[in-house]
């Protein structure tokens, strides 16, 4: 070994090309995304803390055994109080049933349209595609107004007595918007299903209906669940069209979104926030269902 051998230059080179830390990048992502997430959480927390601080929590009567827990129960008490009112119970029931009804109707429409759009090329396909987006881009009020106007014309006018300002109007107003979202989801679902298996089924002698029902549909199960829950959630959030087309008649066509509006309009903020929180809980539960059992990779 010669003592004159120069020291290897590699450490210097390694030093120059050392990969920098990823921390700033992720910090930036975290900050930008975090602001929005925090804002979202802040909204919900503000609602809860408003309930905690509202006087209405003191007004609720509690059984003696529960009385010591009042400080803990404060955010829930106004909600319990609201739940005790028969019109609100009716509103909740109508919301749940009508949204489920709407979701199923939306699926019935969304499955065939989604399948058609995804698998087939036919004249007017692009036009149909654009048409289906109309309820998504239109202001909801326009949908309600248009429905109201539609039912002034024959043949709709002959059944308008049983529809307008009645429960069917609630379903129809929800359906017009919710179905558009379900169609988008189902189309994305069918887009992701490989047509090979279906083609093989056809070559093996299946009819179109058999191939669709036995091969395609089972694969679309998760997508259908997602489409259904999205339609359900959209129906629950429906408000403008309902107000115009179904009215907000107590014990008849009042759903939770209209309840919030009217509690607000008589300046009963506690009531409005309490009902809002009920809706938030319902939405969270449904969206969790969609995430756990639904399709993980479908977006619209």
């Amino acid at each position: 070994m010669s003592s004159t051998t120069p020291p290897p230059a590699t450490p210097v080179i390694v030093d120059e090309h050392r990969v920098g830390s990823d921390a700033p990048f992720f910090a930036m992502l975290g900050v930008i995304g975090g602001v929005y997430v925090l804002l979202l959480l802040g909204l919900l927390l503000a609602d809860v803390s408003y309930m905690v601080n509202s006087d209405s929590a003191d007004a609720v009567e509690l059984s003696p055994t529960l009385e010591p827990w009042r400080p803990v129960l404060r955010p829930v008490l106004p909600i319990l109080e609201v739940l005790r009112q028969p019109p609100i119970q009716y509103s909740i029931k109508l919301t749940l049933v009508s949204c489920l009804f709407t979701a199923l109707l939306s699926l019935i429409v969304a499955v065939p349209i989604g399948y058609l759009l995804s698998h087939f090329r036919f004249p007017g396909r692009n036009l149909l595609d654009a048409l289906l987006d109309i309820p998504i881009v239109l202001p909801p009020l326009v949908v309600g107004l248009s429905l109201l106007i539609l039912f002034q014309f024959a043949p709709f006018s002959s059944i308008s007595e049983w529809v307008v300002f009645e429960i069917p109007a609630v379903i129809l107003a929800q359906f017009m918007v919710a179905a558009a979202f379900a169609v988008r989801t189902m189309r994305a679902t069918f887009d992701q299903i490989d047509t090979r298996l279906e083609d093989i089924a056809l070559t093996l002698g299946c009819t179109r209906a058999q191939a669709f029902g036995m091969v395609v549909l089972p694969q679309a199960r998760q997508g259908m669940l997602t489409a259904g829950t999205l339609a359900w959630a959209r129906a629950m959030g429906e408000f403008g069209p309902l107000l115009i087309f179904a009215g907000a008649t107590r014990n008849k066509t009042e759903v939770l979104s209209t309840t919030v509006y009217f509690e607000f309009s008589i300046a009963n903020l506690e009531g409005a926030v309490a009902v809002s929180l009920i809706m938030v809980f319902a939405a969270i539960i449904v969206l969790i269902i969609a995430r756990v059992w639904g399709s993980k990779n479908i977006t619209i």
Partner: protein
Amino acid sequence: MRRDTEFVLTSRPGAVNSLYLFAVIVLLVLLGLGWVLVDMGAVQTKSGDELFMYCAAGMRVPIEKIAADYEHEFGVPVRVTYDGSNTLLSTITAHQKGDLYLAADDFYINQAQDSGLVQEMLPLATMRPVIAVAQGNPKNIQSLDDLFRDGVKTALGNPEQAAVGKMTKKLLVDSGDWEKLSAHVTETGVFEPTVPAVANAVKVGAIDAGIIWDTTAKIIPGLDYIAVPELDPGISEVTLGVLTSSKQPTAALHFARYVAAREKGLPVFSQGGWEVVDGDVWSDRPELTFYCGSVNRRAVEPVLEAFQKREGVVVNTVYNGCGILTGQMRTIVDQDQGKGFPDTYMACDVYYLDTVKEMFQDAVNVSDTEVVIAVQKGNPKNIASLQDLTKPGMRVSVGQPRQCTIGVLTKQLLEKEGVYDGVMDNVVTQTTTSALLVPTVATGSLDATLAYATDTLAEGDKIDVVRIESPAGKAVQPFSIARSSDQKYLSRRLYTAISRSKDQFEEAGFHWRLDDVIGIEGAEQLPGSQGTDFLDPPAKISPPQ
């Protein structure tokens, strides 16, 4: 063996076409949900006919209570849909269905009536704009000027969207503060689309002061309010309208009367902080006593019939000569309707109403008719003027001036034309009402009579008419409501019904006078708008006698 293999190949056990499975399950669930929905909807209609009402959202609390009371008492459910007054108006316009519309401000109900959407209007309560502040008035706001202070954030209703905003703008333009305040609010405050939005902004502390209705300020906990002179004149009326689209107007009016009755609906409003009108006394089937000069009978009768049918009320009409009617009025102790004193009176001429005017609110002149000479068919005696009636041998009938208006008018006319004594020499008979005059000539008994032109129409085949060119020969029919009536609002609606029957009056030969007031300043004050002494303003603009 071979058959079995084939079977397995074409139809594997357990393999189900999920399309059909899906269809069956969805159908079953939909049926189940549909049944629940039908059941929810059916509950509403089991109890029979129901009423449908559009109601301003701010009135929800009292209306819910009144509707519940009404259903309990009469078994008729009232379904109410709530929204902003202006939005509801658009909905009614588009839908053309429903029975009632309660607007938070009479601006909208007047608009609805102008567009033919509302038939009857029942005022319920009044309200005026005030400055609302958070409880305890932390910014110590005492006057309109305080809103201009630095650090005071103010919310106003948008004049294009909210009635309170429209009213605020009008009042402050009048007081000269609008330019400055709207600039200040644009800079530091906010314009909101609805009253509750302004109130909520003040309540949660986002805004220091807001101009809202005093009624709203009273019912919202956590708000104080200050009345200021600039805003005080802005009285607005909460008004309930019956829609022309209603298929059950009688039922709708029954409920409307209930809401506006002083023992039924109105106390609920006043408990909620509203300043209510005096209202009518409640009665399931109210009865109006209507004294009517006999000249009006032909025009008024069909109107009364339709009015009674639509309102579901009874109008006891007494037709007679006005002297007799006013004589009766004076004999009724304490102007007591129970003892027969009229709620309303439509005289043959203003002359007789003047004799009892202290008992009545100011009147509106509805119509007028000329006094003419009725002669036998073909005019065998060649009568061409009043002068001819003084000829010797003429046989004439006139009304008795102490008992009927035509008698008074005839006397005034003849005196004015300077032929009184000459004609009276030829008078063979004097009748107690105008209705008896024309038959004296139509039957050929007499040569001439001085009668209302309207009374001669029906006998056109038996008599001829000679017109008298004299301004004195005209009877003007005024309509008025008794001060003592406890059915003033129902009487007002009777007036409204009469005021819409121009055709009937013209067919009966009257000249219609209500057109004359249209276009005159103050015509918007016509009955049905503001105040309770409703007949006052039109009287001021009636053409002079």
